[in-house]
């Protein structure tokens, strides 16, 4: 008898919520241990590095502020993505929607620099929402009309958006006062989000939106429709739902939230726009949204953890430790957490070889 015959994989009839949580926590602990081993092989002391990760991302007010800036950005992007993902619309165009949102905000910021902040900022946010939403809607409409894959189209739309910002930066929007550097001018002071408790006010917007999205997805008809549509389009039609309308609303919301992330990053952190300002977080957000099982409150927690890793990467570099260690850590955590799904859904049992075999 071969070993394969002795291992039996059977489907579990449903692990309890507690067991699921436990298996994820175990996965994270195992992931930390495994990456600790990698660090050992690289010649570093794992505990020391874990300590550094915590201190370099949380220990001082400014470090904590940086970590929070990233958390806000990552949470907003993940929120946007999760709306589309719940509908099984694979929007991986958060980057593009983010940049177009930032562009929309900049249009208003440069167009009406002297409006009072209480009017200018909401206008910027609104415009960012609309621009991001439309950027996501284009692939959705193409999908509805020609049944294209939204995964590919949303991905490709990213590069159009980024190149468009580069074009602005090196061309028409180049700041004449920047002495030749390709840079877009700074926003007027009215167009910059104020700080609240030392962190830009985006965190309040973020928390409000997390609550709003939780309610929307869980307690409203729209959230229900999105879930049904995500499970099966035929069922949604059978139930008399207007599937096209639901898809348009959900995609607008998804792209819009990513657009608002662009507004917040442009206004509060960059105080302008650049073609580098996302730092690729639009893709990281796909991972955080998925790890959080598309649940808004969990997204905040996961985004915070990832932001710690992102933030400490730079600090480690300064200390002469390769920043890629944090990337290894990210990868290992994803691997183990996604791997734990298997153990939640399936049970593996071993049998003893019997005498005849």
């Amino acid at each position: 008898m071969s070993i394969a015959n002795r291992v039996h994989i059977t489907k579990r009839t449903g692990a309890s919520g507690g067991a699921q949580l436990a298996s994820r926590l175990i996965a994270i602990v195992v992931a930390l241990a495994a990456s600790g081993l990698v660090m050992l092989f690289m010649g570093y002391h794992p505990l020391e590095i874990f300590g550094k990760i915590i201190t370099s991302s949380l220990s001082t007010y400014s470090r904590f502020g940086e970590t929070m800036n990233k958390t806000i950005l990552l949470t907003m992007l993940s929120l946007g993505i999760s709306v589309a993902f719940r509908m099984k619309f694979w929007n991986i165009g958060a980057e593009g929607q983010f940049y177009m949102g930032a562009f929309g905000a900049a249009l208003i910021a440069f167009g009406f620099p002297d409006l009072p902040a209480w009017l200018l900022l909401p206008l910027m946010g609104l415009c960012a929402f609309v621009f991001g939403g439309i950027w996501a809607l284009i692939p959705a409409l193409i999908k509805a009309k020609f049944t294209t894959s939204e995964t590919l189209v949303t991905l490709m739309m990213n590069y159009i958006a980024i190149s468009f910002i580069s074009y602005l930066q090196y061309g028409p929007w180049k700041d004449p006062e920047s002495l030749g550097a390709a840079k877009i001018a700074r926003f007027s002071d009215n167009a910059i989000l104020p700080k609240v408790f030392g962190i830009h006010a985006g965190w309040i917007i973020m928390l409000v939106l997390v609550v709003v999205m939780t309610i929307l997805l869980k307690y409203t008809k729209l959230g229900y429709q999105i879930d049904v549509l995500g499970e099966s389009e035929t069922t949604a039609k059978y139930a008399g739902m207007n599937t096209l309308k639901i898809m348009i609303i959900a995609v607008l919301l998804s792209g819009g939230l990513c657009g608002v992330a662009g507004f917040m990053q442009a206004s509060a952190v960059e105080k302008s726009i650049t073609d580098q300002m996302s730092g690729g977080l639009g893709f990281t957000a796909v991972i955080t949204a998925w790890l959080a099982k598309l649940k808004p409150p969990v997204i905040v927690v996961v985004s915070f953890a990832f932001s710690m890793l992102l933030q400490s990467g730079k600090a480690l570099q300064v200390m002469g430790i390769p920043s890629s260690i944090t990337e290894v850590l990210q990868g290992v955590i994803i691997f183990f957490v996604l791997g734990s799904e298997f153990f939640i859904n399936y049970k593996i049992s071993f049998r003893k070889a019997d005498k005849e075999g």
Partner: protein
Amino acid sequence: MSEPYIRLKNICKSFGTVQANKNVSIDVNKGEILALLGENGSGKSTLVNMLSGIYTPDSGEIEIGGKNVVFRSPKDAINAGIGMIHQHFKLIDVLTAAENIVIGQENSVVLSKKKMNARINELSQKYGISIDPDKKVYNMSVSEKQSVEIMKILYRGADVLILDEPTAVLTPQEIRALFDILRGMKERGCCIIIITHKLAEVMEISDRVTVLRKGESITTAVTKDSTPQELTEMMVGSAVSLEIDRPKEKLSEQPVLSVDRLSKKSFEGVDLLRDMSFDLYGGEILGVAGIAGSGQKELCEIIAGLMKADGGSVKFSGEEILGLSPRAILRRGISMSFIPEDRLGMGLVAGMSVMNNVILKSYNRNPGPFLDRKFARTLAEQIVHDFDISTPSVTHEVKKLSGGNIQKVLLGREIWLAPKVLITAYPVRGLDIGASYNIYRVLNEQKKKGVAVLFIGEDLDVLKSISDRLMVIHGGEVVDIVDPEKVTKEDIGMMMLGHKPGAEGGEAV
């Protein structure tokens, strides 16, 4: 009597907290047909799955030919000469019968087609199975596919055949042909185990019958010494009436639903529905009999607005509804529930709770953007209570319920909507006797309320006894609408194949 060839002793098997088999013992002799009878969830499938190596028992023994065996995979069971035919065939559509039969059997790189066909022909003759080795599976009828499955098992040299509800999708003629094959195999010394819900078939084909209830073997009886009534009572655990009511109700004066020359072609240009016309009155059950794939699904989906028709009309109380959106049709009080083979399909959302499924068509009844969760819970609890659905709670996911309970959720929801037209396709698919009779009762109640019921079914006995009128369809056409009292099952079977009785051998037009 000699030693039985197959003996299962004190088999136990649990899945999580559910004990599917508890000290079950059965035995089968060579040259014998044993029927396994039991309600859904009584452990029949689990039991035969252990005999065919899909599951391994937690405890207990399996003996074959007096020798203790342990099966770890279906392959072990096949090697021991045991073959199983599942409800859903496992054939490759684009291959021929012969290729399907030998697949995974021959070890040589080049297949000798001549040798293959010779062996298949030899087996065909021996067991009286007619098979065209060169026919592609996608061109075959259901019964031809089943013959290929049986042949596959015989080709492997199996002498133990297990059939899981083999007659569910066959016409009476096909069932008779299958039974002839089984009797032929029995005479040649094969052991046959057959799972079926249809008592008439148990009585006709089996030598002995083992009744299972709640995972335990209740009794084993010699078939000819027992009656259907006794067997049912042992199966259900209490007395049941096997009569299906057919109350006469006052019909509505005008047809509630009037279908006229409805036609639909497939993408490839094949006729799915051809000039289908019928009227459906309030207070009647119009039964629809037909081989699977005769246009049942298309008819349902067109009436519900999910599919566009190519021509014809569907009038609801005189108003044309063809071309209206599913929502508009729903609002007029036309409810359609189609139970597909996998039971979930489009009627239910598998990953959602019972609560969220019962509000699928009524979630929008309250104004405002929020879901009325209190209503959802009350409705779910009411349906669970009225239809006696066994679920740990109304927040339990539907896909984790058993088949019968899933169907009750669907039917409960549709009936709660108080429709004027109730279209129900295969509502008892795979249900046990008790649950089925409950559903017939529910349909009759609807009829009494004056609802127009279109009942698309499989079991001709049931169709004959519950329908006020019976419509037989074939290839998307109405062959005839008959009085179920005045036709025999055989006549219906002929009509299902497209022959109109009386029209000597000719295709019905």
